[in-house]
């Protein structure tokens, strides 16, 4: 056996002690005969002792380290959960999407409002004087006072009404509510063309002697009659209708 074989055999220093106790006899004969190999074996023995000593001398694992690691873990998990929750909210309500949704909602509300106005015009009554009625001058009717409710006049722009004209009309008019105000039985008191009849008008409830209105309503037989008079912004009565 040569020295190299001995060295390769004892490359692990921990094997030296084991082999020395029950190893091959020719190996130990060579070791005792060869000074280099005996030095090598001695060095390996010392190394094995040193490593064993180092192996046995590990400091104790402190309990505070366990607690610190556990605390770190809990802190990390709590932090990550909070971050995940916040990220979820942020993803759900991103500023761009919020803006887009708000814009869409506003647009849909506006469109719905326009549609409601266009689809249900019958709910609103526009009182219009009978501009095509024959003029019947009555100086007394111009001095009638007492405002009961306010209506708006609609310009008669013909049968063809475009969307823009309707919209314009909506902006210019206010709506009159109440069944008695919706009666179309107004009779024109004087001639007025569409230009001179423009502007807001008022309905005034008055009581008049039946003789005054005989020309307009010849059928009325009572001494006093109640009538609604349509008065323009200039104070001139434009139309009248008999209520009772």
């Amino acid at each position, binding site marked *: 056996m040569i020295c190299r074989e001995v060295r390769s055999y004892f*490359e692990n220093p921990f094997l030296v002690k084991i082999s020395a106790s029950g190893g091959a006899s020719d190996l130990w004969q060579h070791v005792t005969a060869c000074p280099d190999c005996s030095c090598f074996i001695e060095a390996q023995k010392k190394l094995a002792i*040193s*490593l064993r000593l*180092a192996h046995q*001398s*590990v400091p104790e694992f402190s309990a505070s380290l366990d607690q610190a690691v556990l605390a770190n*873990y809990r802190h990390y998990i709590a932090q990550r959960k909070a971050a995940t929750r916040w990220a979820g909210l942020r993803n759900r309500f991103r500023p761009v999407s919020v803006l887009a949704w708000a814009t869409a909602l506003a647009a849909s509300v506006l469109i719905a409002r326009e549609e409601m106005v266009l689809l249900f015009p019958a709910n609103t009554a526009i009182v219009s004087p009978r501009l095509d009625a024959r003029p019947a001058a009555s100086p007394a009717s111009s001095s009638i006072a007492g405002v009961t409710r306010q209506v708006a006049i609609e310009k008669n722009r013909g049968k063809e009404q475009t969307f823009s004209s309707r919209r314009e009309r909506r902006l210019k008019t206010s709506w009159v509510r109440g069944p008695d105000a919706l009666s179309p039985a107004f009779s024109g008191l004087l001639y007025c063309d569409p230009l001179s009849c423009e502007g807001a008008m008022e309905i005034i409830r008055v009581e008049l002697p039946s003789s005054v209105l005989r020309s307009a309503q010849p059928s009325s037989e009572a001494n006093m009659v109640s009538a609604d008079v349509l008065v323009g912004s200039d104070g001139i009565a434009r139309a009248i209708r008999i209520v009772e």
Partner: protein
Amino acid sequence: MNSFRTRSDSELLRLSLGGEEGAFLALYERLKYPIFRYVFYMTNSKTAAEEVTQELFICLLKEGNRYREEQGDVAAFAFGIARNLIRRMKRRERMYEALPDDETLIRLSGNIVSEPEALPGQVIRQQLLERIRRAIAALPDHYRQAIVLCDLCEFSYAEAALRLNCAVGTIRSRLNRGHALLARRLKQAGKPRAELPTAGTEECLI
């Protein structure tokens, strides 16, 4: 806790990342001693070992999603992290020169005493141990890793090869050379002061 004992390391890591504290504790119990021993022998400092062990488990949680089971077990992944943390720590502390601690002072005082056999056995043992640790810590990194894993942490050659991501033959050769180098250094360190080459008196007076 008992239900987690039978689970594999990778399962425990996955559950830990999901917030299962029991799984994390089971994984910690499995890894803490090998990691702590490894870092202690690599750094020769208990404080550093504790610091790295603590930091390692934080890194394991943060980087756990990057773990791939087909590339190795969780312990190898953790040892890789520990290795990087040790390197980072040494790089960070390279610029500072450590003050001699109490153990070093004892060792220095032991050198002054003419008859070390007269000292109590505990002190001699402590000196010897310190010398061994210093010799191990002074080894080149690849030799030190092999010695620490195979001789001090009691991993098999195959396990050490897995931890260091190299072949078993590489571990064997590194171990052999590391042993030779360590034995030489221990022999040098064990020599009495008189045998060491010293400068002449006239040179010291300059």
